């Protein structure tokens, strides 16, 4: 089993706009239509992630972090390139935002557990642990419209990580939790990693990436600006931010 958990090769994602939507419809049937505007959210992104390793993805807003995550999770189709993931994948992509507000926490957990492909018996078995991990008390049986964002994130993380996946994809979702829960979630991620789970972690907070990731990718304008050991990439990124800040300050003074 030397196969990497995740292999991304020459990944590119293009968002196209057409002068008329009719032209877009034409492309579905193989008719040639030139897009009016093209936006490449990702270009030529390649990397592999070995079993039990963790990879951080950093970069400014709009650098392509979310697109990369979605392409790995399988919610968007790459325009070019390939993504191969082996084993069970679990994604915590701002999952909280897709809960049904009228259903209770417990019912939403069931809904998502089904979505993650769990069997009813397994869900019944795991439910107490999910409830315990989320630590939101009796609110677990209340409709989710009464929840705060942090509570949603707690339930989302608890259900997505109820089983140890082979590949765990974690978005900014943790940043909405309080310090206590963030810490608890980090610990679970580290436990999973020790047990062999590969982790893809996206964050604006460089500290988080530096703390839990072995390697990191710095995305800039959809392209890989740097890839390497997490500490080196984070240092370089931090330096680039300082430069940008300084030049912004210089411009402000002029």
């Amino acid at each position, binding site marked *: 089993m030397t196969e990497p958990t995740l292999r991304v090769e020459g990944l590119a994602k293009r968002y196209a706009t057409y002068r008329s939507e009719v032209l877009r419809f034409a492309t579905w049937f193989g008719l040639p239509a030139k897009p009016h505007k093209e936006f490449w959210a990702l270009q030529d992104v390649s990397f592999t992630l070995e079993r039990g390793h963790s990879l951080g993805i950093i970069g400014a807003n709009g650098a392509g972090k979310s697109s990369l995550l979605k392409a790995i999770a399988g919610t968007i189709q790459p325009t070019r390139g390939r993504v191969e993931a082996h084993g069970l994948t679990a994604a915590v992509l701002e999952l909280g935002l897709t809960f049904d507000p*009228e259903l209770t926490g417990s019912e939403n957990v069931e809904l998502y557990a089904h979505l993650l492909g769990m069997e009813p018996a397994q869900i019944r078995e795991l439910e107490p642990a999910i409830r315990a991990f989320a630590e939101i008390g009796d609110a677990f049986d209340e409709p989710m419209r009464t929840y705060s964002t942090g509570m949603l994130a707690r339930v989302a993380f608890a259900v997505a990580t109820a089983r140890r996946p082979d590949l765990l994809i974690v978005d900014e979702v943790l940043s909405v939790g309080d310090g206590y829960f963030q810490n608890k979630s980090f610990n679970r991620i580290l436990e999973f990693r020790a047990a062999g789970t590969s982790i893809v972690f996206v964050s604006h907070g460089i500290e988080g990436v530096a703390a839990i990731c072995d390697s990191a990718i710095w995305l800039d304008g959809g392209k890989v600006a740097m890839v390497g050991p997490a500490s080196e990439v984070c240092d370089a990124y931090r330096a680039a931010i300082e430069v940008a800040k300084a030049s912004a300050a210089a411009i402000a003074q002029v």
Partner: protein
Amino acid sequence: MEAKTTYRGFTNPWPHRRFVVQAIRGEIKRQFARSTLGALWLILHPLARAVIFALVFSEILLARLPGVPSPYAYTIYLMAGMAGWGLFSDVLTRSVTIFIEYAAMLKKAPISHLCIPAIGCGGALFSHVVLLVAMALVTSLLGSVPGLAWLALIPAAAVLLLLGFGIGLILGVFNVFKRDVAQLIGIVLQLWFWLTPIVYVSDIIPKKYQWIAEFNPIWPVIRVYQDAMVYGTYPQLETLAVPLALGVALSLAALLLLRRASSDMIDSL
């Protein structure tokens, strides 16, 4: 290079079947959350509509159903036609807008896109079954106890479901990119409703307009509902052949379209 990806948009929906069932339960629950009468509204709306039409047409315009002595026959005729039509139009309108309703989930969860219209169809079918049970009670009270002919409603409902799903899904895909589609379909459905002999009987259509009814693929299916509920006669199921073939063809076309469009759809939602 051979494109091999984890993209789940157009994959086998079967592994997600339990999710679909749970989502349908959620839909039903959400519809009636915080209302006192709850699921009763599922029945009250269509029944009230039929009663209002019946009052206006039979009491004010003195419409009677030719050849049936019961004074309630026209009311039952209306309810039968409207029940059938209701299933078709519910499935269709839900399918048109369902991708937009579930946009947040589609963008964040790797789920087969085929599950989403299935949720809409399931919800509409559930309402329909509840309505049919209520109608069986109402028609019994009005003196015509449901007979075995009602069994013909099962294939008829299946055909309506297929037709509504096929048309709705095709339009639903386009509606993601051009939201005018959903608006337009509301008007088209109203016209279609009045072109179908639901409120009136087909005999009163002038000769020169008969072809419209002949051409209407919904009409033979609605007639099965009316035959079973009003006249208690076994419908000629062979009349369902053409609508069935059309429903299958449209549904297949819709799936092919979804396959081509699913990636663009996610990018545009």
